Structures are given as C-alpha cells and as structure tokens.
C-alpha cells in the first residue's frame, strides 16, 4: 500500500447505553479509532462484547448515545433516517451473515438491486452487475436463483452486491458465519483479493480469531471497549492456503 493514507472512518468517544428495566447496559463504553482508505479491518470479540452494535452504528442502523462517527467526512450521528438511507445507498456496501439475497430474483438481479435504488436504468445496472459478477467468478450462475446456489456461491453474490455501488466502505457482519471452513477460506480470499484490487475499505465483524487474521488490522473488543489493536500478517493471501 504505497499510496497516500486517507482517513475514511473516524470514531470518537462512542457510547451506546441500553436501558434494560432499571439497570443500564453499556454496549459500547467509550470507543475511539480511525480507519484509513484501503484498509481491511476486523473487529473481533465474543458474543455480547458490543462488536455488532459498533458495526450497526458505523452503518447508520443504530443511533449512538454519545460520541461522533465521521464517515467519508460526514457525521453519521447527525443524520436522520432518510439521510442515513441515502448515505448508505451512496457510500456503503453491506455483506450479511445469512447472505440476505432476495429469493425471487436471480444472481444478476440481486446484485443490481442497490443500483435500482439509485434510480439507474435497467440496461446500465445489469451491465455493471455482470462486471462484478465476473469479478467474483460466477458469470455462469448469473441466471440462477439463490436457492439454486451453494452457500459459498450465495455469499459471493452477496459480496458482488456490496461491490456494485463502488462504495467507500464495505461492512461485513460475520460474512462466513454460515459457511464451512473451506468455503469460508475461499470467501475470505476472494474478499481480500477484490478489495485490494479496487482499493476499497472493508470493516468486518467476527468472533473467529483465525478469520480475523486475514485482516490488516484487528480491533479486539470486550465489554464495550477496545482492548487491543493488532496488525495482521502482511502476506495474508499466502497463509490462507495453509488452512
């Protein structure tokens, strides 16, 4: 990564406090960090550590109780729901654990869906979808419905769907949580390869240390606080195959 570093995500002193009956639960308890363009970051933690809450707030799906989130120069905590939706549409790609493809649409249509929301006409969006589909190596499956594809293939469609809008940041929530370990490795490899090619930023949430080791940087989170930041292996692509 020889190019100039540029901050895409800046989180400052972020709190999220849930009220459960009388008591307060601090899901996030003062988190601060920055992520630069082109970085592949993993947020690792056990269940209940606050990692998913953090991701949801980064993606604008939840409001923080206190603190600042600045993504691509815009304050997420100051946006209303409509503005958040618009922001996601233009700047964010999302990869889900359970793929969340629409069962009635084929691979190509699923990938083109976010472009539909942008108001792109059918011809252009299908052409773009086809390009990213080739990138994830599923051109042969473009007319297949999600039910006609394996889990790994479905997640590859999911990755393509996140890529198609050419977002500044891609968020991935346990992207391999529903896949076996071999397929997981394939998918991780693919993700890493593609974002490096496109110089895109990826923030992934996982509880799996091994998957986290694919990342450039690993945020370890526990009880709502970042406990350590580690640097992953520089030659991630190589050691994937050792698994």
């Amino acid at each position, binding site marked *: 990564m020889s190019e100039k570093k540029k901050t895409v995500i800046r989180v400052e002193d972020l709190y999220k406090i849930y009220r459960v009956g009388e008591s307060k639960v601090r899901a996030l308890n003062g988190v601060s960090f920055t992520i630069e363009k082109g970085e592949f970051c993993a947020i690792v933690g056990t269940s209940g550590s606050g990692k998913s809450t953090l991701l949801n707030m980064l993606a604008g*799906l939840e409001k923080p109780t206190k603190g600042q989130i600045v993504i691509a120069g815009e304050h997420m905590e100051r946006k209303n729901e409509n503005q958040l939706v618009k922001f996601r549409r233009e700047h964010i790609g999302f990869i889900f654990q359970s793929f969340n493809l629409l069962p009635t649409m084929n691979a190509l249509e699923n990938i083109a869906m976010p472009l539909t929301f942008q108001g792109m006409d059918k011809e252009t969006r299908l052409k773009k979808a086809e390009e990213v589909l080739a990138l994830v190596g599923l051109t042969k499956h473009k007319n297949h419905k999600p039910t006609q594809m394996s889990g790994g293939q479905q997640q590859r469609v999911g990755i393509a769907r996140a890529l198609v809008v050419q977002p500044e940041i891609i968020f991935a929530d346990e992207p391999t949580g529903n896949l076996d370990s071999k397929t997981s490795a394939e998918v991780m490899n693919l993700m890493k390869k593609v974002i490096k090619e496109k110089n895109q930023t990826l923030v992934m949430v996982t509880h799996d240390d091994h998957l986290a080791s694919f990342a450039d940087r690993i945020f370890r989170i526990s009880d709502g606080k970042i406990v350590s930041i580690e640097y992953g292996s520089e030659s991630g692509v190589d050691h994937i195959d050792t698994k």
Partner: protein
Amino acid sequence: MKFRDMLRMSGSSLWKRKVRTILTVLGVVIGTASIVVMISLGLGLSRASLAEIEQYGGITTITVEDQGSGGYMEEESSDSQAEDKHLNDDVIEEIRNIPHVEDVYGVLETEALAMCGGFQTYVSVRGVEPEKMDKLGITLAQGSFPEPDAGYLQAVYGNMIIGDFYNEKTGEGYWYNGELPDIDLMNDSIIFVFDMDSYYNFIWGGGESEDGSAPVMPKKRIIEAAGIMEGTVEDYGSNSYYVYFDINELKKILKKEYKNKAIPGQPTTSSGKPFKEIYYSSIMVNVDDMDYVQEVQNQITQLGYHASSNAEWVQSMQGQYFYIELALGGIGAVSLIVAAIGIANTMMMSIYERTKEIGIMKVLGCDMRNIQGMFLMEAGYIGFIGGALGILLSYTISFTINTVIKNLDLGMEMNMAVGISYIPLWLAGLALVFAVFVGMAAGFFPSLRAMKLSPLAAIRNE
C-alpha cells in the same frame, strides 16, 4: 428509484403470492361490480323515464299555444292586446331570435271525420310542414312523409288512429271488443269530412243552417295515405292520435271548405267572427340543449305567449333519480368497504412476511418513500385489477339483466326497450378510479408501517 422499477417490483411481489392476491382481487371485483350494477339500475330507470318523457312530447321541445284556444289564459284573452297575440309567422320570427332556439315551426290543428267501409271516427288533424315532421318525433313504419307542395292532401296516420274507428251501426270499436277494424289505412280509400257541423245538419236534416240557407252536404274527400307511424295501436306517443298533413295543403282545403265560417280550433274576434288569416294553433320550439329549455321558456313567456314544456317534470324526475342512484350506490359500496378491509389485511400479512426483505432493502439504501410507494402500488394494483375485472363483470351482469327483462315482457308502462341497467362510460371510468383509490387508501397504513420498520430486524432475523 425509477417509477417503472417500483411498478415491476411491487407487481412481482404480488405475483409471488398468487392465491392470496387473487382472493383479495376477487373481493374488489365483487365490490366494484355491486356498486356499478346498483348505480346502473338507477341510471337505467332514469334513462327509461327520460325516454318516456320523450314520447310525451320531447325533452327539448317547448309548445307555444294560442292564448284564446289554450284555455289557461281566458281572462287575458278578453284583453284588447290579446288579438294581436295570435300565432303567425311574425311570432315565429320573434321566437327564432331567442338564443339556443334551434328551430321554430307552426302547427295548425283542427278536427275532421274519417270514414271507411262502415267504420268512422273523429280525428284530430294537424298541419305541419312535411320537413318538420321528423322533428316532432314522428317515425314511420310504412310509407313516407308527404311531398311538399304536392297539390293535394296526403295523410300520415298516428299508430293509434286505427283503434279509434268504430262501427257506424253498432258503435263498437277496438276499445270496446278488442277487434281491430278491417281497414288498411295505407291502401283503402279513407274519406274525410272537415266541416262536420254542415255534415250532421245535412244528415239529421236539421232543416236550416245558421245563416238560414238549406243544408248542403259538405264535400267528402278521399284522401291518399303517405305513411303510418311506428308502433302498435296501444303504444302511446305524443303524435299517436293525430293525422298529419302538409300545413300548406291543409290551409288551402280549410279555406275552401269553411269559406266565411269559423274553422274549429281557430281563434275568433270578440263577436265570434273568424279572422281572415288562418293562425297557427300552436308553435313548436326546439331548444338545442335540455339545460336551456327552462330559460327559453321563460323568455317566451315574457314575450307574452303561453309556453309549456316538460322541463320542470324532467328536472324533478332527475332529482328523484339522483337520490335513488345515491342510495343504490351506497348499498353497493358496503361490499367495496368489505373488500377494502380485505386489502388492508392482505397488505398487513404481506408486511409481516416480508419484514426481512424490507429490512434488506433499507440496509442497501432503498429510500423510505420508495418502500412506502411500492406497498401503496401493490394495494393500488389490487384495486386496479379488481376494478377492471369488476367492470367487466358489471357489463356482463347488466347485459344479462337487460336480456332477461326484455324476454320477460313485463308489460310495464315504462319503456324497457332501452334496458333497465345502463352503464355509461363515465361510470365505468369512475368505478375504476374509485377502486384504485380505495385500494390505495386501504394500503396506506400498512405502507406506513412498512416504511417505519427498523432495518435492524433484517440483520437480527436470522
């Protein structure tokens, strides 16, 4: 998001749940059809009664009557002005200048005795210019209208005339024993006597006529038939009882026949003497549109003539039918309301099922308005399809009702030939718009709910 893409997405999600969509649509079909058919009955009745009024002298026709002979204005006829107010061509010109008047023509009315092969009857005779006859609403079953300036009298018989002939000896006729006399009005020679006073004076040997001279047998005229009006002997129309002639020929004959005597039906001077001129008995005014009849009638009345029309009758009749249509439509609307609840229910169900899908779309950046729009469109689709099919069903039902009623031949007075159920295009169009509106209204709150769904549900809902 493009409107076309929204249409496609909401259409395909309806298609995905075919059975439920069809059932919901069915509710709207029945709802729409019940409203349309109900209102069509009201409209049909209203139209049938308008057709009936048409037979009683037309909807756009105003009749101006001579004040002396009209009977209504007796006190005014003693007025010195009254003599100037008899109806002639000057009056026709005066009325023709009123706005919205399409056509004006005079009618001369008198009486005669008609005889044929042992049967006879009194007939009311009318003279009109031949080209105006169809304006009076005369349609012929046989023959043609008289040729203008034929030089002799040609008769157009009303369809009920034949039933008026009675046997000279027994006095029995159709209305007495139900048998039509054996007369062919078209081809038999019918004999007319116009001066009936002289005729009876002669027959019964009254000795002397009014001026003291010996009674003279008036001329018996064999009159050729030009045509017979459409309709059976029992179909009443405003012209059915009349025999029509060319007014110019009739005037010539009457002048010859009566010479200096008063012609029956004509106004006289205060001393009972006839005028030199033969006046019209009435003047017919055709107005270009039903809505202006009352206005024109008022203006004619202001000119000092006695005018009458069916305008008030039509107005009060239409008012009544408007309320009938409203009531019938209200009854039909009940089932559309039930259908609307069905739509709302279907949409709610659909939102529960699609929580995840809605969430995914929101995470991927689908505008909240677009999400609401898609759900509204789905509801609108149901309304539209249901409405369109409902209108088709209505036309089918309407056609069936009309066919059945026609075949039943209820013998009602009302003219059922036009059908009891009538769906004009505007009603069909309005019903479709209304069905779509009801569908979207029913889908509004569900769509609001879909819009407000939290996108987190999609991710948590594993």
